[in-house]
């Protein structure tokens, strides 16, 4: 029995995470805590619960099922309106036993994060093999942060390679070089996130220092790995032309390893996920960026000779 890691989603037919038609595997757990994170369910290393108010009928079945008194008693629903202050689960008491999820008939309480083995994941990923072959696609491993589970990630990538599957590893780069280096034999393309070049800003908004991230990227470039750099464009954080010029110069200086840059415009479509998890999100009311709004940033990167897409 190989190691199990919590997986939040195995998403088939992904076309924006590397070349072709891909299956994207999301691991649960990340050392960064980016303020804008659009996969908040993948941050914590333990299973969590979504509560979806629109599906909840306040039937009280979950209330009855909870031994720790972590479930709020049913309230009368106020039409279509969602009560901003009401959240079903008292997270200070909840121990994620999932009894309430089992009790819910309406899919309003949902477990987030299923333990899966490498073999289970690969069996599912392999099902779309004909699509990978025709489109030049494959598997993309993302999260969360796959390098937070070095042994598992390496096994998964190696297993995929053995089955003839093309691999992309989506990483923040925040790990020891040895871990990243050990993934190289099984990784066709690194999808490497760069958030900002200022160490201070990076620490402030992601919770970690960016110097290992930048150092790892330089080393990947030195050893000649294929890298697609992905830059989430966050309003008011890293979207100034001046900053993008710095990034462009930095990336251009890394040489031919950087095969592409993807600008990922900020979106707030994930605000429901925060609500379902019972978390506040400071970006909830920030408008999503349209591709056209960051076209000038794309120009800046392309001026440095970097092939750049918006949206991957």
């Amino acid at each position, binding site marked *: 029995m190989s190691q199990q890691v919590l997986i939040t989603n195995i998403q*088939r*037919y992904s*076309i924006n995470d590397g070349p072709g038609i891909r299956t994207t595997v999301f691991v649960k757990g990340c050392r960064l805590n980016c303020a804008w994170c659009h996969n908040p369910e993948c941050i914590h290393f333990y299973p969590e619960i979504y509560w979806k108010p629109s599906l909840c009928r306040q039937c009280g*079945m979950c209330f009855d099922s909870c031994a720790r008194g972590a479930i709020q008693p049913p309230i009368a629903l106020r039409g279509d309106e969602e009560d901003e202050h009401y959240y079903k689960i008292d997270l200070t008491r909840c121990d994620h036993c999932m009894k309430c999820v089992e009790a819910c008939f309406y899919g309003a309480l949902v477990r987030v994060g299923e333990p899966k083995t490498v073999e289970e994941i690969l069996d599912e990923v392999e*099902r*779309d093999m004909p699509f990978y072959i025709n489109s030049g696609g494959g598997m993309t491993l993302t999260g969360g942060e796959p390098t937070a589970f070095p042994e598992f990630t390496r096994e998964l990538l190696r297993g995929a390679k053995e089955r003839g599957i093309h691999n992309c590893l989506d990483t923040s780069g925040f790990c020891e070089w040895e871990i990243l280096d050990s993934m190289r034999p099984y990784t066709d393309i690194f999808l490497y996130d760069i958030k900002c070049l200022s160490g201070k800003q990076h620490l402030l908004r992601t919770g970690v220092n960016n110097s290992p991230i930048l150092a790892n990227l330089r080393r990947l470039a030195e050893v000649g790995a294929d890298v697609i750099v992905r830059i989430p464009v966050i309003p008011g954080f890293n979207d100034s032309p001046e900053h993008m010029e710095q990034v462009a110069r930095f990336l251009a200086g890394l040489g031919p390893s950087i095969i592409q840059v993807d600008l990922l415009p900020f979106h707030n479509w994930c605000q429901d996920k925060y609500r379902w998890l019972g978390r506040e999100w400071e970006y909830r009311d920030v408008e999503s960026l349209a591709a056209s709004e960051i076209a000038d940033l794309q120009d800046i990167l392309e001026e440095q000779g970097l092939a750049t897409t918006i949206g991957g």
Partner: protein
Amino acid sequence: MAAVETRTIEEIEKSGQWWWWAEHKRSKRLDYLRKAVWKKGAKGSGYQPGVKVDLERAVLFTEAFKANEHDSLRMRYAKALANVFDNITIFIQDHAQIMGYLGSRPHTIVWHPEILFLLNEDLYNDRTVIPEPVDENLKLIRELCDYWNPQTTGAKVFNLVPPEEIVKLLTGVIGWGLPISRIGYATKQWDYMFRLGLEGIIAEIDERIKEAEDRIYNKVPDPEDLPYYEKLDVWKSMKVVLEAVIRWARRYSRLAKIIAENFETDPKRKEELLRIAEVCWKVPAKPPEHLHESLQFDHFIQIACRYEACEGAWPARPDYWHGPFYDKDVNQDKVLTHEEALDLTGEFLIRCYEVGWFWLMLARDTLQGITGTWVWTIGGVNEDGTDACNDMTDCLLEAARLVRVANPTFAFRYHPNVRMKTLREVFECIRQGLGYPSMRNDPILITNAMHWHKHPLREARRWVHQACMSPCPDTKLGCQPFRMANATIIAAKAIEYALFDGYDNVLQMQFGPHTGDASKFETFEELYQAWYTQVKWMMDTLVKLTNGGRYMAQFLDPRPLLSGLYERCVELGVDSSHPSERGNSWITFFAWMETGDSLAAVKKLVFDEKKYTMAQLIEALRNNWEGYEEMRMDFVRAPKWGNDDDYVDQIHVRCHRDVAKHSWEIKDPTGNPWPPLPENIAAYVTNATKVWALPNGRRLGDTLYDGGCSPGAGLDKKGPTAVLRSVAKIDHIGDVRATLLNQRLSPQQLAGEKGFHIWHSYIKTWAELGIDHVQFNMVDNETLKAAQREPEKYPELIVRIAGYSAHFVDLNKKTQDTIIARNVQELGV
């Protein structure tokens, strides 16, 4: 709307508002013709305001029918039809280049009083379509109803069937109406018509008549010659009506000339009218030589046939038959520019779109928004297997984007050697949210046509869609109006009957055979066998009745015009509905995929996990799940089709195999099998009130699944590739005649070169998986919701619903909601 006008075409293109884009891109002529159309499709079940019934056709037909009462039935029909062609009012629309309309005025829909008394009474009771003066016309309609009702084809077919069977037909559970060839499907035999022209066919008929008369009158008496008395009448009736069609076309020729020479002041239009006069004089009497002539020939024949009967479909392969004329005129002789050809082609589509007739309320409901399932076949291969795509294919696809009609739609025969240029045109139509072409897997369907109905390879390669889905060649022996539109069953009812010992909870009567008290079933196998018995009984009952109607059609319901256009019929002196040796049948399975999902849920929760007993299940279902909501949610969450899950998928596969096996045991009048064809048109809404609660968690009235092999709305959780993997488990050659897969993709995903690359690799994989059909709905939910709120702003927004495209704003709220509820199968977000 002023804001729209000031935007550039580029901006409109970017915003994806293709209906505005089309308005700006098309020529002035096409814009005029497109906007001058009276829409004949129903909104909900009522006709659009202003559309009126045309009484000229009914009156002229009846007049001549009465005057020739000593002739045979077929000759009376022939003469009645000839009287219509000789006397019905004709008109020429401004800017039009293609002539021929089904009705005396552009806003009218014809009424065929000789077909069905139910239809006649529907008209008498539908006061919105009666033309002025209403009282006088109602009196006339009453008289015509009284004259025709007892001798309509419907009344005669009723007499073939015992009363208790009629009840079954009228419920819609088995059979969608009556087996009547006048409302069946009829592929036209273009090679025969284009080779000879009607005059050439008449010359052949004359030879046959001469030969018959020789046999009967001048030979030593021989009993073997006696059938020639009958054949002689067949040939003579063909001739009467073919000659009348030529005269009808030439009336347009004269009218065009009269207008040109006496009234038209614009010299350019005058020239056009004189050209029209030449074209209509020449075709369909003689073979066409130019694109304008071939299109005009085709259209005259299609309209003429609809004066004869309410054909339930419009099978065509326009690129294959008009392609050589396009090539000659545009590429070789350069007598026509591409833009001129585009104008003609666009108008050709509009001329089809504007056709309508007064039709049954029930049918209007099920076909929402369109007059019939008019799917035109394009692409595919030639008889020798080479790519058949040509410049006319591209021209048709381009024209479709400019005129954006909901009917006809196209279905594209995809094969690995399709030329890239054409594939890009196909992609562009899908990307622009047209909802068509649907994609058909050519190698699979060629094999399928050979497998089920014995078509030899070269002929099978010439297949056209019979209605929405079925492949059958347009060759001498392939062409036959043999499948009738009534051959449908609501397949999910077999599950209901298996669970209730054949009792119908909706109709409150014993319907199917007794298969035992399901609450006492101890194994899954018992339930499965009960279901199999019920579904076989439904197929048998349908086929018995339909075979009867079919066989008798040549006597009760002859079609002299259509017969005269078929080489086989002219040669043999038989009616078009006379059985040939090739088959062309299928049973449409409405609400089919509920079957496997229901069986799988019972297997899992009752027999595998033993969470519930059969008795509990029957009790919950009897109560339509009311009071059993928690239990129902368990059944809803049981494994469902479309998630690449073998537990449920293999049950579906088994159901398909067993039904296919039984279809070889029930033969049509040609001795060929009746294969299943699962699809739904809009019946997934209209049938929702006819199917009782089911073990897949469905309650009475819940919308049914919308495809033939599509998962239930929102039940596919793993995205489009997992759906394809599930669907590929069905054998699309041996299990079904065809089956319909709906998928919706949002347009942002398919932008640019990357979008084409992804779509192309998706289609390549779909083809390799051996799936026979897929159609894409490319409109996002935001647009649909906006269209729901403000329908007046989205008049041309087309969505695809099972089997065809319709204007979204024409659909009822429930259907609109179902479309919105379907997963937008997002990529990567």
